[in-house]
């Protein structure tokens, strides 16, 4: 049962007849169907900007936004709701409301967490002058932010938030997600070209080069999971990662095979490059290109680009969770959750899924504020000379593992029976499947470290002995 049934029943209930009228259907779609994106992803992407500033401040021994409370919006609501009272009385009413025992600490907490700052930034962007530079290509300049936002939100349609909440139940969910997220490439190029400014043009060209080349590793990482689970339907992939017993964690794809573990890492870093986060953010490199492709954007259009960037980060986190970290399943005690009734199980699963991609958002922010950024040729070399070969190696390893474990018998149509069910590896088999790749990888890493990691003796003196 997925949201589509819920929308039909709700529309039918609204219009009173099994065949719902057009307005009832529209209202149902507006309320129910886009709920996962509108009520879950959009606010978290907005809060993401404050998470970034607070985490950055914490890492830089600063405090971050904490003085902006919510008195502005509250005063506005008070003016609107209590319109019949004079202003002085309205202010006094607001003051009493704010000093209620529960409300006061809550407002104080929200202020300290920076929620007020989030609202203030949004409100300021509303009032900002929205200009299109004279030399710019108007239509392209105006359309770019909307394309960037759509490219970031569309893939969420196929991702299962919980067993019942998914917007688009398609058998090829994985392929759909990757295909649709290609729109942002075009949006960045349009922004770069549309701004009519040399710095934006450079930023746009760099963004296109980077995004296109990093879609290959993301695609290959996805192909690895599809090869392993035998299907592209995200629901089936998540369902397969369930393993009865206390630690459902062991069923996750990430821990099934070292090659899948490698593909998970590649997906995360290639995902970082997809949303131009440091160390891959030369497209909007602050210090070189002033602000890259969004140099000319101001006000709400720039806000849309920022929202698209954070939604893209959440998308990468969601893809990683769905494909490798067991989607909405909890690491421990999934048995108990599955046995709960639907109205209790769904919020728990939703919370787990959201928790996973908020953790990945935090890791991305953490990486952004520690690492410097790559140069353009280093990014390309990293993609084509390291990530893609690693992905191919992992795919080869996965195929060998499945073959050695007798996964596919002659004449057996591929994909009917997921490889994992046919994989009855005994203990020595599992050891072999893990030991050989780990040894191989360890040797590779040790050789690379010996060649690259040579620190000059004086540097040890600087870093107190530990590199």
């Amino acid at each position: 049962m997925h949201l589509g049934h819920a929308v039909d029943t709700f529309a039918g209930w609204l219009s009173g007849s099994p065949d719902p009228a057009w307005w009832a259907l529209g209202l149902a779609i507006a309320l129910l169907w886009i709920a996962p994106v509108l009520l879950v992803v959009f606010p978290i992407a907005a809060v993401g900007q404050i998470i970034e500033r607070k985490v950055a401040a914490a890492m830089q021994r600063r405090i971050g936004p904490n003085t902006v409370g919510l008195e502005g919006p509250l005063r506005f609501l008070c003016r609107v709701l209590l319109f019949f009272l004079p202003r002085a009385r309205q202010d006094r009413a607001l003051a009493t409301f704010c000093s209620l025992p529960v409300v006061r600490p809550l407002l104080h907490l929200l202020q300290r967490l920076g929620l007020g700052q989030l609202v203030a930034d949004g409100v300021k962007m509303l009032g900002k002058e929205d200009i299109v530079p004279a030399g710019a290509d108007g239509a392209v300049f105006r359309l770019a932010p909307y394309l960037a936002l759509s490219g970031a939100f569309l893939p969420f349609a196929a991702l299962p938030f919980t067993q019942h909440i998914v917007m688009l139940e398609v058998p090829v969910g994985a392929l759909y997600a990757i295909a649709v997220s290609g729109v942002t490439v075009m949006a960045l190029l349009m922004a770069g070209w549309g701004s009519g400014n040399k710095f934006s043009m450079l930023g746009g060209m760099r963004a296109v080069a980077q995004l296109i080349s990093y879609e290959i590793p993301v695609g290959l990482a996805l192909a690895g999971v599809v090869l392993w689970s035998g299907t592209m339907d995200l629901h089936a992939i998540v369902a397969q990662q369930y393993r009865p017993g206390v630690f459902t964690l062991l069923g996750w794809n990430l821990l099934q095979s070292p090659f899948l573990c490698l593909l998970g890492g590649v997906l995360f870093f290639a995902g970082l490059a997809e949303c131009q986060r440091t160390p891959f953010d030369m497209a909007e490199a602050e210090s070189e290109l002033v602000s890259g492709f969004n140099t000319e954007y101001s006000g709400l259009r720039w806000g849309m680009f920022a929202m698209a960037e954070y939604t893209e980060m959440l998308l990468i986190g969601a893809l990683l969770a769905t494909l490798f970290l067991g989607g909405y399943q909890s690491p421990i005690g999934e048995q108990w959750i599955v046995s709960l009734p639907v109205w209790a199980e769904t919020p728990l699963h939703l919370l787990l899924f959201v928790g996973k991609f908020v953790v990945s958002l935090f890791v991305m922010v953490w990486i952004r504020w520690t690492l410097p950024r790559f140069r353009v040729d280093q990014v390309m070399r990293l993609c084509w000379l390291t990530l893609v070969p690693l992905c191919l190696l992992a795919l080869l390893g996965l195929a060998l593992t499945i073959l050695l474990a007798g996964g596919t018998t002659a004449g057996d149509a591929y994909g009917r029976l997921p490889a994992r069910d046919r994989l009855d590896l005994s203990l020595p088999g599992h050891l072999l499947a893990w030991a050989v790749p780990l040894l191989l990888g360890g040797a590779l890493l040790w050789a690379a470290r010996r060649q690259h990691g040579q620190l000059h003796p004086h540097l040890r003196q600087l870093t107190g002995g530990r590199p």
Partner: protein
Amino acid sequence: MTVEAITPSGERMQLNLGPQHPATHGVLRIVIDTDGEVVANCTPDHGYLHRSIEKIGECVEYPLFVPYTDRVDYVCAMNANLAYCLAVEKLLATDPATAVTVPLRGECIRVLVAELNRISSHLIGVGAMAMDLGAYTPFMHGIAQRELVNDIFEKLCGQRLTYNYVTIGGVGFDLHPSATAEISAFLDKFEVEMVRFNQLITTNAIFRERCAGIAPITAAEAVAFGLVGPNLRASGVDWDLRRDEPYGIYGQLAVRVPTGQAYAGRHGVLGDCYDRYVVRLLEIQESVRQCREVLKILPPAAAKANDPQGGWQADVSKQIRKPPKGEVHCRTEAPRGEMGYYLVSDGSKIPYRVRVRTGSFSAAGIFQHVMRGIFLADVVAVIGSFDIVVPEIDR
């Protein structure tokens, strides 16, 4: 691969880096001919912060020019004051009648504040280079340490950035009683912080990759283009004015001079961006050691300011009104290299000509020679590695 082959002149465009740009450390403008990624040629454009300090030198009496020397290099104002005051004392010393002897405690305080300011100046230089390459956190940690140095200087002379503290004949005020304890406490805490700073950025693989082998400068080129200070020592030239032409009490201190040795490992070349970066970090360690040494030989304070042993400021009011006629050239080791003053006096109490030669000026002179055929992203790394301060170039 000649530059012409990489970017045929037909496809080039002119790009303006500055005068207001996050990476140009102030108002320096560089016009870059590039095809988008590789820089074919760059012509720096200076003068946006030309405040005519040398002309003011001809309008203002000797002691009144000291606040303007702060503004020649505001990141290390103490060293700038010291350079000018030493030059005037050397001018007065050419005529035995007007010679000035600075009390020993004054000399020790001068070296102490100069080395402390060198630490805070290198912190900005090193932090800004990391920020230009995208790492914001090290810059913030550097600024946090700088605040502690500012506190010490503020208690000493009331100002945080432009101190007007070193005067002709000594220093303006004596150390406050708790100064030595505070400074040694700061030095101990600071060394732990620097280890964490280096672990965060210096040995970071991406940072090393971005700086290794970029714009290497050979020793001969460095000397020919007049590079000085850390930029010169990074090319392997073992030359430091504090050791080779000692002034003040530097003769009594054991000055160790770190030089560049291709620190970046595999891709590293002698005299590249990474060497200049690491030489500054090693110099910070040297400065900490020298501060501790000075704290050990600091004589106790005497009642009178011009007491030869414990005093801090000799009385120069008579000599400074009738300086000897003639000229003098005196140079000191500022954090950005040799800061040399060429004073011409016509016997009146106002100098006839004050000429300041600074390290950043020659560093800017080598930009055009160095930035051929490198990437656009590396232009930012090269500017950061020279640690230029714009008023030093424009004066």
